[in-house]
């Protein structure tokens, strides 16, 4: 069975912003939590045949992450880019992604990372799944086809759960699920020379600009300041045993150990 898997990826800021975030290859990176999702999609398609489409939303300077995903093995890249999408919160982002996914369909699976390195909400995957009306399992650590059904395992605190899903479905992939492959030089050459990135705008998706961007965002970031870390060095006194006891006491008190 040939699969069409859409993987939603994000370029995340790697440098703390001063006045605002401008994402480019020098200041941003492919969200590390998206890499296991990409790996899972690419290896499933390698086994079963089909296509991996990578989708990201952002300005044209984010296109580099699509190239990176295609260098890993994804087949085509879609950049959802429109000035009217600026300042989208997670709901507006999910709304736009859902419209793009409907446009790119039919699909068998939509995969997400569990969260992002920069904003860390973990909301976009589940929200998008609701909007495209697909069954969702989060924090998936493995998946396997059994006939037409997808058998998935998920990991939550202290438990493992197993589900059976009919397709199409959406999954968020746990960071420990698979080790993402390194990018081969030949893959980079191929991504830039033979694979294409298509750009989608709001007009292509035929959605009302009022439900995306800042207009469609019920939440907004009102301030962003750099966290300053204050470190201090303190020397414990007493015998080695006393020092160790004091140290363990303090670590316990801080809640780091039980």
């Amino acid at each position, binding site marked *: 069975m040939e699969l069409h898997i859409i993987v939603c990826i994000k370029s995340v800021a790697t440098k703390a912003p001063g006045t605002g975030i401008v994402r480019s*290859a*020098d200041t941003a*990176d492919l969200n590390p939590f998206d890499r296991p999702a990409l790996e899972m999609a690419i290896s499933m398609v390698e086994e079963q045949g089909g296509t991996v489409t990578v989708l990201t939303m952002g300005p044209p300077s984010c*296109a*580099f992450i699509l*190239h*990176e995903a295609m*260098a890993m093995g994804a087949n085509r890249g879609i950049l959802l880019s429109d000035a009217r999408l600026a300042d989208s919160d997670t709901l507006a982002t999910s709304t736009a992604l859902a419209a793009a996914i409907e446009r790119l369909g039919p699909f068998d699976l939509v995969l997400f990372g569990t969260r992002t390195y920069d904003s860390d909400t973990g909301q976009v995957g589940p929200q998008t799944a609701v909007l495209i009306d697909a069954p969702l399992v989060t924090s998936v650590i493995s998946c396997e086809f059994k006939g037409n059904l997808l058998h998935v395992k998920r990991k939550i605190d202290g438990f493992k759960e197993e589900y059976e899903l009919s397709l199409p479905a959406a999954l968020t992939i746990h960071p420990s699920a698979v080790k993402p492959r*390194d*990018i*081969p*030089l*030949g893959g*980079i*050459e191929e*991504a*830039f020379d033979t694979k294409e990135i298509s750009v989608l705008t709001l007009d292509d998706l035929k959605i009302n600009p009022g439900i995306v961007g800042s207009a469609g965002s019920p939440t907004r970031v009102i301030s962003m300041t750099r966290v300053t870390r204050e470190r201090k060095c303190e020397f414990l006194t007493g015998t080695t045993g006393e020092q160790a006891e004091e140290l363990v006491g303090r670590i316990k008190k801080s809640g780091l150990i039980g």
Partner: protein
Amino acid sequence: MNTFLTEKNRAVRRSVRAFCEREIVPIAGEIDREARFPWEIIEMMGKLGYFGIQVPKNLGGAGMDAMSYVITIEEISRACGSLGLCVTVHNSVAVYPILAFGTEEQKERWIPQLARGEKIGAFGLTEPNAGSDAAGIEATAIRDNDHYVVNANKAFVTNGGIADICLIFARTDPNAGRRGISVIAAERGAQGFIVGDLEDLCGMRSNPVSSIRLYDCKVPAENLIGKEGMGLQIGLAALDIGRVGIAAQAVGIAQAALEDSAGYANQRQQFGVSIGRHQSIQAMLADMATQVEAARLMVYRAAILRDQGKSFSQASAMAKLHASEMSSTVTDMAVQIHGGYGYSKAYAVERYYRDARVTRIYEGTSEIHRMIIAKGILDEYK
């Protein structure tokens, strides 16, 4: 960041750097101390295409341009000079001559395995009595029906201890002077192919540099690269490319020294402030950063000229001369900024210092490069 790099070039840098930081940086000090060649890394790099960077895809390579090649070497060398050396020598002076001068049969026979890193290549030009004076080599390869009988004593062969294929420069016509030198691909395992002891070197310690000796070694005649008498032509063409690689390696080592020094200068406190607040340390960091960037631009210029199909010999020689001299200076400053710790094996800068030193010697000494560059200038304004 160099704004003229293409997105593809940047993607190469990001991916190679990510791999090197995860896999090579953590073991670089250990493999230097143990003088160990890390096969596990070689295997991974082979799968990622690092051993066939510019080899066409139909022969199993990554099919990339010279700019991607130098960025790859720069990044590997930033993590470990010895591995940068292994990869650049393999790509430039071992694989390239076969690609450029070999027959279709030779390419199909050797290139795919070399490009995947399943076989490692080496370049056997230097001898105990011939190095800078390449025309002075004494090795001989005498044709006897369908093979050559090769007698050679090759010294300081990079990758020598593990190489599967070594390009041997030998005299096929002892009476023809410079025009009597040819290149023959000798394969490890042939009778009379002897790998000597590993050299106990100051730096580049995890590269198995060794001597390779051939005693009445019978090499099939079809292993001749190009034609008889083309040896020096092939060698010089390979060295043009090799020199850009060595220059990129020197830049990578210096970049690592610069980054470590800046980090140390921010962290090390003396007189109640970080030493980076002291003007004398700032001056060193400024000079280091400026020199690294200048050398990098020279390396990139040579690579761009090659990619544009223009003559790049002079640019390559200048890049190699400047980058190697720069790398020695910058790593020396890095040791100075680190003070006593810089002279200790507890910090990586002493390794950079040792590794950088040889870039002024191999693939043409600085003195030979000055001769080449001066000749080019004098010829231009004749």
